[in-house]
Structures are given as structure tokens and as C-alpha cells.
């Protein structure tokens, strides 16, 4: 199995701030890879580049799927270049598909958010049905007249939604509006929603934030299960070392927008640069405990 994501020399600049500085790393398919680093290291920025929310100032991000490479940082111009008659079609296609967030999602990248972004006024199961928008029959007339094909596709979508709800232990709260769920359940629902899109790669932004020890153990089991049983690559940002060190196959450490270390959890833990980034220089008397918590 080759890499699923190749990040090459990605830099992003917000005004004078260099948020990411030539970040390069690869991610193998069906791996659990963690991105760690102190606050403000650029982890979420990197995530946003990967999922199309930000466009990197420089560098490229390539997603490999079924042996083909897709450049996430460039619009899909190739399809109509050199075809003069296709300009209008190309223009229209561009208009409808060039949104990088939407395009990345269609390539099989799915994500969760640091601050939960569920559809608060929709029920749990509706959240999961929305996530399957691209795989259901969304033709207008077949929906209005409820053709057999439409009903079949809805049934399939419902079954899948129930599957992921049960997978995350949410079947009892399926008909409750997402905004009214408890925090831990919302986190789980967001993960279920991301999985309902049938992704190849799922990006989890601090999935363990605000969870108690039992919930974190459940989460670890779920993530490992996603990789082993559902053949999904998991990229996660996490501060909670219990999650990172126990389940990740590889860890990338960011600090001040640069990759300072990469390797297996054991390797990374020993890396002096990582220790320095987290605990500071030995001369400095920064309180180590509080920095670790941050």
C-alpha cells in the first residue's frame, strides 16, 4: 500500500504571519497518523489546507486514490483545456464544482471539527442522511412522486445511517435534535456523520477534547476499528497523549508551522526537539505541567 496523502512543501501565509512553513510529510494508506504540537503550531491550519478550507500559498497536496493522483491545491482545469468549444461547459463545470471544500469531500476526505459543527436543528439521523447526499437519488421528480428507485435509495441510506449510529452507540438518540445532545454524544455523532460519507481518509480535529477517560477508551477502540475493519486512513490532531501514543502508527510533530519530528510514537517521544518544543529549554523555567496540558 502506497501513500494516500503526500504533502509537499506547503506554506501558508496570513498577512505577515507564516502559519505553515514548507511542511512536508506523507501518510500511508490505512494508517492512523497523529499530528501533534503545542498550541498555535499550525495543526488545524494544515487540516484546513488538506480539506480545502484554505488554499496554501505555496506547495502541493496530492491525494492518491485507486492509483490516481489528485492535486487538492489546483482546480481541475485539465478536463477542458485545449478544447475551445468546451469553454462554456468548462466555465459552467468550474462554477459548479470548483469549490475546493466540496471537491475534496467528493474525493473521499471527510472531517470533524475542533468546535463541533453539527446541523443543530436536525436530528441525529438526519445529520447522517445529509452526509449521504451524493450517494442517494436526489432527482427532484423521483423524490416528489416517490418512485420505487427513490424509495430504495432512501432505504439504503437509512440503513447506512442506522449502521453508523449503532456503531457509535447513538441509536437511542437518533430522533433527538443534534443541538440538544450531550457534548460527548455530539462528538460521537460528528464522527458518525463523517463516516456516513464513506470516506477513504478521515481527519479528526481533537476528537478526544472534553471526553472523560471511559469515553476516550471507547474512542480509541472506534478509531482502531475504523482502520482495521473499515479500511480507512485516519489523520488526527490530538493533545491527549493517551490517544496519540496508544493508537497511532505514525506521529508528525509541528511547531511554529514547521515539522520538527516524524516517526513512530516511541521515536517521537525520545526526540529531543519534541521534548524541547513541549517542555522548553532546560535553562528556561517554564512550568512543564501547564504546557503539557495546553
Amino acid at each position: 500500500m502506497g501513500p494516500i496523502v503526500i504533502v509537499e512543501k506547503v506554506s501558508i501565509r496570513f498577512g505577515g504571519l507564516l502559519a505553515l512553513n514548507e511542511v512536508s510529510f506523507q501518510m500511508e494508506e490505512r494508517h492512523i497518523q497523529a499530528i501533534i504540537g503545542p498550541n498555535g503550531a499550525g495543526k488545524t491550519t494544515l487540516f484546513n489546507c488538506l480539506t480545502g478550507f484554505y488554499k496554501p500559498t505555496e506547495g502541493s497536496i496530492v491525494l492518491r486514490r485507486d492509483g490516481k493522483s489528485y492535486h487538492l491545491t489546483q482546480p481541475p482545469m485539465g478536463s477542458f483545456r485545449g478544447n475551445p468549444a468546451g469553454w462554456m461547459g468548462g466555465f459552467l463545470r468550474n462554477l459548479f464544482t470548483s469549490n475546493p471544500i466540496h471537491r475534496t469531500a467528493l474525493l473521499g476526505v471527510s472531517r470533524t471539527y475542533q468546535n463541533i459543527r453539527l446541523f443543530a436543528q436536525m436530528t441525529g439521523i438526519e445529520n447522517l442522511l445529509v452526509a449521504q447526499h451524493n450517494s442517494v437519488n436526489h432527482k427532484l421528480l423521483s423524490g416528489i412522486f416517490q418512485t420505487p428507485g427513490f424509495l430504495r435509495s432512501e432505504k439504503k441510506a437509512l440503513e447506512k445511517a442506522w449502521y453508523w449510529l449503532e456503531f457509535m452507540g447513538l441509536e437511542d438518540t437518533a430522533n433527538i435534535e443534534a443541538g440538544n445532545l450531550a457534548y460527548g454524544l455530539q462528538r460521537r455523532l460528528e464522527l458518525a456523520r463523517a463516516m456516513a460519507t464513506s470516506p477513504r481518509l478521515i481527519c479528526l480535529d481533537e476528537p478526544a477534547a472534553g471526553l472523560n477517560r471511559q469515553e476516550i477508551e471507547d474512542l480509541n477502540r472506534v478509531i482502531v476499528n475504523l482502520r482495521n475493519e473499515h479500511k480507512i486512513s485516519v489523520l488526527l490532531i490530538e493533545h491527549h497523549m493517551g490517544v496519540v501514543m496508544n493508537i497511532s502508527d505514525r506521529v508528525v510533530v509541528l511547531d511554529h508551522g514547521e515539522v520538527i519530528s516524524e516517526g513512530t510514537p516511541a521515536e517521537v517521544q525520545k526526540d529531543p526537539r519534541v521534548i524541547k518544543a513541549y517542555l522548553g529549554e532546560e535553562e528556561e523555567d517554564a512550568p512543564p505541567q501547564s504546557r503539557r496540558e495546553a
Partner: protein
Amino acid sequence: MEIDFIIFNIPVIILEQGALAAGFLASLFYIRALDLRAYGEMIKDAAIVGAIAMVLFVPIVGLVLKDRSLVFQIERSLMLVGAVAVGRLHISGAVRARVGIRILWRLALVGISETFAFFFFPEPQRNLIVLVVLVVLAIVFALEALLRSGEKLDSIGSKIMGAWPAVISRAKGRQGYLMFFLVGLLVLLPFEPFINSENPFITDYHLGTLTQTLIYILLAMGLNIVVGLAGLLDLGFVAFYAVGAYGYALITLHLGEFGIGFWWALPITASLAAFAGCMLGFPVLRMHGDYLAIVTLGFGEIIRILLVNMIDFTNGPNGMSAPRPTLMGLEFTRRAKEGGVPLHEYFDIPYDATYRYVFIYLVALALALAAIFVFRRLREMPIGRAWEALREDETASKALGINHTTVKLSAFTLGAAFAGVGGVLFAANEGFISPSSFTFVESAIILSIVVLGGMGSITGVIIAAAILTLLPELFRDLQQYRMLGFGLAMVFIMIWRPGGLIKVRRRAFVRRDSARGASNPALGEAD
């Protein structure tokens, strides 16, 4: 009371009792609680009660004192016996079905009170009483069923998920019954003047007003897509209404010679308005909230000003006449235009201006019901879910692979198509249109219907449309305070019921298949 107080109006009684019985049977169908044997028992029971009533009524009511001699009039007592039997049928059905017993009880009371009114009150009062009883009961039913089912779902819902199926099917049964009853009433309503021709309670004016209410329901359903589901605040919705009305007038004016009449214009104009909606959608794709509201407001004004200024095309502020609709080419005029055939000549019946009002009313009713149906379906379809997701969190829905461009455009387009149909009806109903019918106030009214009724809700919007169009008609003397009233209503609704009169109830899903609990690979091992 005078002696000749009893005038039989057999068709009315048959009609109304028939409607009640049909509504009742439909409710049984929805409830599906009864088998054939139960029906048989009910009918037998009703027959027995009818026979007893016959014994009692024939000597008492059947003998009429007329010109100092007793005349035997069997039909009077038969009517009473019929009323009793039907009432008994209602009650025994209610008892057997065990659902909504109180509602069905009241239904039986409608039948009895009506029949009473028919027998014991002289003509003018009788109509009034029957109508008041019907309207009051319809409203009571509607409110009770809606409030009760909502309250049940809210309070119990989250606690006992296992009880969902029961609660839902009960709510569904009631709603289905209620729908049937109300729709039946609305369909039968315009025929009252024909049956009761001496002193009709429902006049052309009433029918015209009701048609206008139905048009507003249609429009509100369209705006409900844009504002309620997709969450795009549209202050220029009247533009599409205007496109519909003027589209109809212009199409029939210029293409009338090719046989394009009301029915052809309807889909053409709807697509025209949909196109206009799509055109508005493009520039506002990236706009939200206040900015979107300002642009749509501007769009509404642009259309109106265009209509005023394109004098050669639209006849400017002088307005245009719009043709009346036809029924399979038959016209509703006293004398047909050249080549046409008026309805009354074709059927060889006397001319009556009411036919036209009845016809437009029925067309509007059918289209409003169709709009409600389509809206209901849309809400449960992938596209409806995508609209709501877009309203809740645009970025998150994009990240799930939803194409926000097409989803937003489809909301504008479909909403505008509804408004286009409303515009055609408006033009056909009024017979004359001018730009002054399509001012911002109109947009504001439609928007307040949606907001007051509850964004995304159907029942709430229908009730709000009825209130906001019928109340101003009732209080015409206070017309100058109308906007004040709207404002006050808006403020109070926002304070008391921020979700609108009737907050949208989410659709509940029930796990059906047998694989329940079979797979919980990750969490199952934990405990």
C-alpha cells in the same frame, strides 16, 4: 316560530352527513384499527338505533299541523331517523376505534347539531348556525389535534424511544383524518350557494377572498422553501409573483391566438418565474443574512420599476388585463368571445357569475394543495435535507460533499416557481394587474406569514396565511392600522413563540429491520 319553519333541504343534509361519514370512514382507514366485522357490527348497531328512533319520531315529528288539519309527512321523521343513525354510527365507531374518541364524539355532535339547526330554525339563521358550528368545530379539531400530538411528541419523545411508533401512528391517523375533513369541507364549501340558492351564506365575495387566501398559502409555501428550509432571507419574493402575473397576461396576450390559455400559461409562467429565481440566485450565492436581504429587496424593486417603466411592453402603471381561466375551453362569461363557447350555453343551464368564482376557487385550492404536497415531499427529500443543512452550517455541509451552488440555486428556483403559479392565479382571479399590486408590502406580508406560522412548518403557515388575509378583510374599517397590527403580531409572536405559531416537528425515523443490535463492533465489547 311559524308553522312553516320546516323546509327540507335534503341535498344539504345528504351532502353534509355524507361528508361527515366519509371523513369518519377515512379516519378509520388511517387508523386501520377495525376489521370488517367491526364495520358490520357498527352498521347493525346503527340500524337498530335507527329503528328505535323511527318508532319514536314517526308519530311525533311525522304529523304536521297544516291549515287546521294533521298531515302525515313521513320524510321529516325519516330525516331525523337518518341523522340519529349516522350519529350513532359515529359514536360506535369512535368507541371501537379507541382513537381520538373525543374528536369523533364532537363529530357526531356536528351531525346532530346541524340536523337540529336544519329542522328547527328558519332559513337565514339556519345557515349561519350550521356554518358557525362547522367552522368553530373545524378550528377546535385542528388546534386540538395539532397541539396534542405536538405535546405528546415533545414530552414523552425523548424519554421513551420505544413508544415512538405508537405515538407517531396516532398522530398520523389524527392528522390524516383531520386533513380529509378539512379538505372535504373546503371542496364542498363553494357549492353552498347553488344548493341554498335562496339565501346563500357564501357569496362571490367570500369565494374571492378565500381564493386570495389560497394564493397566499401557495406563495408562502414557495417562500417557506427559501426562508424556512434554506434559511435565505428573501425580501423580494414579490418579484416572482409579479413575473408570474405579468407572464400570464403577456403570454395570453401575445400567444393567445395559438391557443395558449390559462392551462398552458401555468407551466410556462412557472418556468419563467423559476428562471428569474435562478437568475437572482447567481449573484447572491456568496451572500448571507443582511446582505442577502438587501440584494433581494433591491431585486424586488427592480422588477416593479421595470414593470412601471417598460410602457410599450407592460403598459406601465396603467396595468394590463388578464384573461379569465377556462374549463376545457369553455368560458365563464355571459357571452363568449368570438369562437368561444360559454359554459352555461354548453351545459344549457342559466348563466350565473358564481360559476367563475367557484372554478377559480377550486383551481386555487387544487394548486395550493399540490404546493403543500410538494413542499411536504421536498422537506423529506435529499434536496430538502441539503437545504436545511445549508441553513444550519454552510461550511460543514460543503465539507460533506454538498454542492452549495446547486443547492442554493434550486431553493431560489423552486421557490420562485411556486410564486409564479401564485401570480398566474392572482392575475386570473383579479382579471387586471398593475405594478401597484407588487410592492414591497406584498413581500412583507408573505414573509410575515412564513415567520408567524413557523419557518419550515406547513400547518403553521396555513393558519398564519388564513389569519393574515382573512382578518384584514373582517376589519376593513380599521384598514389604516393594518401594518400596525402586523407589527404587533410579529413582536408578540417573537416574544411568546419564537419558533412561530407551530414549530416544525422533526420527522421521526423508526428502526425497522431485524438486524437491530446485531452490529456494534466497537462499543459492544466495552461493557
